[in-house]
């Protein structure tokens, strides 16, 4: 099993450009998450999904949109990139559970630079 994969691994954008980050998981997980990691700030949740066709805002959703048309894929979109969105983006997935006791599985990350 590949686990959680992310494409691309690196990307450089100019201010105002758009792009989509793709996350795929082959573990049949219900839950999927997008985080950004910035120095000294840990991981902050951007958006998440508790199932196919559903998405919700996390802690820092502004400037991002997401879609989960298929259970195994979770897309993160930047419509008009800004330098403040320079970051490392991680996707994660997790199995269904009502207790919150399950761990999340992370992808390798996408390093995005916005000039």
């Amino acid at each position, binding site marked *: 099993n590949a686990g959680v994969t992310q494409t691309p691994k690196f990307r450089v954008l100019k201010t105002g450009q758009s792009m989509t980050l793709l996350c795929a998981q082959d573990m049949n997980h219900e839950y999927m998450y997008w985080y950004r990691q910035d120095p000294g700030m*840990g991981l902050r*949740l951007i958006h998440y999904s508790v199932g196919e066709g559903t998405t*919700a805002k996390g802690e820092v959703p502004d400037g991002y949109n997401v879609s989960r048309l298929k259970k195994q894929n979770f897309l993160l979109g930047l419509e008009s990139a800004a330098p403040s969105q320079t970051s490392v983006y991680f996707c*994660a997935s997790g199995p269904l559970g009502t207790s*919150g006791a399950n761990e*999340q599985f992370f992808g390798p990350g996408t390093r995005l630079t916005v000039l």
Partner: protein
Amino acid sequence: AQSVAQPEDQVNVAEGNPLTVKCTYSVSGNPYLFWYVQYPNRGLQFLLKYITGDNLVKGSYGFEAEFNKSQTSFHLKKPSALVSDSALYFCAVRDPFYGGATNKLIFGTGTLLAVQP
């Protein structure tokens, strides 16, 4: 507000010595606590978790963590550090606001562990 604190940005330890990476939390209700490790240019990997039961939890790569309810702490420990343990360590707690319906986590800011040979 619900939060997780890792008071040390960096911990330095000599190979073979015991190590401790500190974590304290502030959440309502019973905490579900996790430790993750991030090696350079990699995603986070799950190490261990505390849900209920024994306060000493054992995890991957010889790591363990001790849950202390009175001190609201969940410190990560290892009896003998290896150079290969050098990495960024994150403590996390289940977000209690959403209950268990989303498995959302609140992460600390991370502690860089440097093990010198």
